[in-house]
């Protein structure tokens, strides 16, 4: 576990994202989202990361932000739902062993089964916090390690097994602070 953590710890997430028109979206991905959103407005983004190119669609359903990821040819990747309430103790076990101190900045629930995600989204999903397992937690957090505070992204299964951990590269904020 420790060896895996050290290996994963060295990865850095660098991502480029820009908004695209719906005309540039593969039909299979567009149709999937339309079956949920009908004619309501959604925003499409193209993302280029160290792990490849993806398409992402973002929208608000109920009072929760949702994003659906597809690969570059429109094959379903996952659905992420941004949680408003989460119990930090439910994921504290792996984080306590990795960091001296940590604090969650954003917690998303990730569903990777296309059909199940479609059923849940079409049923309105009024309370994403009560979705039954299996799902993953995608967590953005502030972590302190070796006297250095950085932002990390961690993916955990619902049984708290770590799928990956990587540092998120931060931009300088000097132009906003001075």
């Amino acid at each position, binding site marked *: 576990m420790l060896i895996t953590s050290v290996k994963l710890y060295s990865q850095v997430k660098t*991502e*480029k*994202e*820009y*908004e695209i028109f719906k005309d540039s979206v593969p039909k299979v991905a567009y149709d999937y989202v339309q079956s949920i959103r009908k004619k309501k407005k959604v925003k499409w*983004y193209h993302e280029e990361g160290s792990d490849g190119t993806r398409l992402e669609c*973002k929208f608000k359903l109920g009072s929760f*932000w949702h994003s659906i990821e597809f690969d570059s040819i429109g094959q379903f990747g996952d659905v992420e739902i*941004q949680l408003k309430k989460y119990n930090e103790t439910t994921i504290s076990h792996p984080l306590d062993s990795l960091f001296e*101190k940590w*604090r969650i900045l954003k917690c998303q629930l990730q569903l990777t089964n296309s059909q199940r995600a479609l059923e849940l989204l079409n049923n309105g999903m009024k309370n994403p916090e009560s979705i039954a397992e299996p799902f993953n937690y995608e967590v953005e957090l*502030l972590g*302190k390690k070796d*006297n*250095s*505070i950085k932002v990390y992204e961690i993916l955990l299964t619902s049984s708290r097994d770590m799928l990956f951990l990587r540092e998120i*590269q931060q*931009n*300088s*904020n*000097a*132009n*906003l*602070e*001075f």
Partner: protein
Amino acid sequence: MRYIFFFILVFNSIVCNAQETQSGILPFINLSGQIQNELSFNVKIESRQFLYQDKALDYDYNLTDIGNVISYKFWNAIKLSMGYMLRIEGDNFEHRSIQQLTKTFSTNSFKVSWRLRTDQTFGASKPEYRIRARIALQKPFNGNELNNKEYYLKLTHEMLNDWKGRVHDLDLRLLGFVGYKLDDNQRLEFGVDTRFDKFINNELRSNIWGSIGYYVNID
């Protein structure tokens, strides 16, 4: 677009009420970097040059500010900064001590930073004490995250209270900038920096500056 419209509306209404207007350019260079772990530094050099004053076009080099600030970032992401600024205005020198607290955070589509700053200026005239509160917002023109070689909008609003001797004044600042992120460590920003003061004595004065800045990070 809504932000720009709102900014122009507020800006116009205040400028029209000003008794006196000065304008010019404010070029600046801002250098920042990490010293160790959560300790960082920032150096800013800015010059002020008048192009219009006393209702006439008139070039006049006014002053140069050289500021140095050391910052420590706490666990809760609040940054405490202490610094010193030297103001060179002709043969006169002014010395300013600076203390500030900042916190920057991201929402789903933009970045926000608030700042609370106090400063004390000592020079040839009476000492000046100021307390100022500022909020700044940054939004990329495309998408939610700012990429390299991309433009963004930056809006800033600041309120200042200053005391010089027994005279108290209020200063309001509104800034609208377009920025361009050249790479991970360099940015260019250009825009309008508007400052309104002498509110208290009802002699409203407006200063409108065309500003261009270069930010470089040497982490």
